[in-house]
């Protein structure tokens, strides 16, 4: 590992398998990624690609009864989260790393006021008096645009967008170094989504928080991220800076995703969908995962070794064609 590779957060060869009946679901296959302080990574993929599993593995909140195995390393400031004991893990969650869930309705406790929910976590991690924790909670609420006059209300008194703001305040109360945001705006309307994304951006810049944003929406990634990793069938198939991936998408799947989106600027007769369906995650395949749906497939794909190909510094694609025939 070189000096530069000592990112403060790094996932190395993370593999997660679930069991379902007597089949093994290969949810995450050999995923590696890294993040520097203050950086935002967009993790893009479709339903079932393994995005949420990665986030849950990072915080070790995978559903225990169905996990078959977790291997690899999740390094946070030099320590492997997967090897941590309960005590360290407790300190880590919520204080160093916190998570925003997709559904703000279920992420808040309906029988506690929002201020007490935010103050609780802060008190727990800082061991400070209640008054100080409350003060912090009010400051956080004000930061996300909720006045102190609403601090003593219950979650059901807030609308969807406001609830998501509360969730964000809750996640940022302990000034975490890393924020995992799992589809934070998917449940919201576009105008509210715009407000919330702006808020997340502002707070991230103000607090210098690094962030992993999980989403299926390329538009959201374009808006907020520095780096992008595209995930397909549990594997990262393309990664690089936002400019790399958006201006020069290299992997046929990434290209397909862009082509399938109706574009406001362009007029097309028909969209170009990616034909077929994602592969069955319970089957280990030989060769490229995307092969069956790929418009460029050829014989060599069946023997593809699934290694990343580096196109330019930091821009990787898991397709043997990239770097050869691609510009």
């Amino acid at each position: 590992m070189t000096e530069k590779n000592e990112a403060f957060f790094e996932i190395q060869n993370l593999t997660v398998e679930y069991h379902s009946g007597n089949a093994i679901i290969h949810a995450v296959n050999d995923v590696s990624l890294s993040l520097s302080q203050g950086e935002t990574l967009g993790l893009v993929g479709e339903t079932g690609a393994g995005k949420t599993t990665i986030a849950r593995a990072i915080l070790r909140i995978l559903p225990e009864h169905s996990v078959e195995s977790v291997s690899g390393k999740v390094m946070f400031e030099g320590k492997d989260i997967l090897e941590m004991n309960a005590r360290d893990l407790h300190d880590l969650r919520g204080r160093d790393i916190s998570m925003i869930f997709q559904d703000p309705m279920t992420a808040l406790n309906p029988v506690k006021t929002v201020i007490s929910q935010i103050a609780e976590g802060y008190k727990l991690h800082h061991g400070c008096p209640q008054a100080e924790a409350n003060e912090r909670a009010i400051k956080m609420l004000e930061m996300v645009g909720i006045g102190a006059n609403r601090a003593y209300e219950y979650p059901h008194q807030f609308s969807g967008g406001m609830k998501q703001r509360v969730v964000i305040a809750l996640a940022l109360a302990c000034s975490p170094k890393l924020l995992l945001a799992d589809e934070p705006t998917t449940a919201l309307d576009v105008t509210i989504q715009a407000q919330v994304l702006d808020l997340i951006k502002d707070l991230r810049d103000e607090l210098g928080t690094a962030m992993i944003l999980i989403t299926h929406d390329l538009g959201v990634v374009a808006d907020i991220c520095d780096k992008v990793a595209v995930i397909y069938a549990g594997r990262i198939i393309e990664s690089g800076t936002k400019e790399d991936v958006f201006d020069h998408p290299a992997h046929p799947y990434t290209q397909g995703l862009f082509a399938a989106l109706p574009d406001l600027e362009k007029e097309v007769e028909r969209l170009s969908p990616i034909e077929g369906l994602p592969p069955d995650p319970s089957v280990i395949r030989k060769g490229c995962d995307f092969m069956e749906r790929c418009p460029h497939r050829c014989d060599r794909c069946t023997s593809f070794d699934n290694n990343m190909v580096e196109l330019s510094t930091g821009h990787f694609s898991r397709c043997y064609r990239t770097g050869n025939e691609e510009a």
Partner: protein
Amino acid sequence: MAALLEVRNLKKYFKSPGGTVHAVDDVSFEIEEGKTVGLVGESGCGKSTLGRTLIHLNESTEGTIVYKGKDVTHLNKKEMVAFRREVQMIFQDPFSSLDPRQTVSDIIKEPMLLSKSMSKAKVEERTEELMDTVGVEKRLRMSYPHELDGGRRQRVGIARALALNPKFIVCDEPVSALDVSIQAQILNLLMDLQEQMGLTYLFITHDMSVVKHISNQICVMYLGQMVEKCDRNELFAHPTHPYTRALLSAIPTTDIHAKKERILLKGEIKSPIDPGEECRFCSRCIYAKEECKKAQSLTEISPGHFVACCRAKELTDT
């Protein structure tokens, strides 16, 4: 050309413990045969209620619905049966719009068996034909909905809607529960079907880029009212109502180099319970003035372009 469907001053109110919910409030529009009208708006704006009222899943409170020149606002049982052969619906959630205890072929056959207009053999034949049309493999005939992915389920829902050769289909967010790559498949299918069968769609969605892709005409709804209505290209070239502008500017685009000025709306949508006379958008509107505190009505600002905003004329110049 005469409109296939015409809606005049349609209102749908619901009673709730807090007062009267104005889900659809005085909405008028028409749809020409073979065309698609897109109905856009955010959650709670009444677009789904409007769609459901059109096909009589709700009974309207006031107003008239004219289909093929005939008033269909109130129908008796017999008329309803005939009406629903021509007017069908595709639902939003492919996970809940199919009965979990019916097989794919049972679901597609049901409308035909209920209509009693075909022999058993004909029904079988037509079922296979429909599965072919919507692109569901025949080997899945005996599968249950939960065994299919979202895209296939939605195809089955489309096949059910097509079974009786309808003329007009209300599509209620048919792609919003689907992944991008699958969404494109279903949108293409809907457009192909329209071309082949001359279908007319009312396409309800919250997604501006989808509505732009599929519609000829677009209606924008806000809190039960129509705030802007015009040709698709006109709407995107000259969005006029402040809400339409905000909606368009809020769409996250995949063009990372576009420098877009985003209009951030203040606050959130008001409650639809007894909303009062004033412009329903004015509390969030950046252009709001004293004069906005009164009822707004759709006015034609250029041929075919209707806006419900008293400052529309001024805004078109900005």
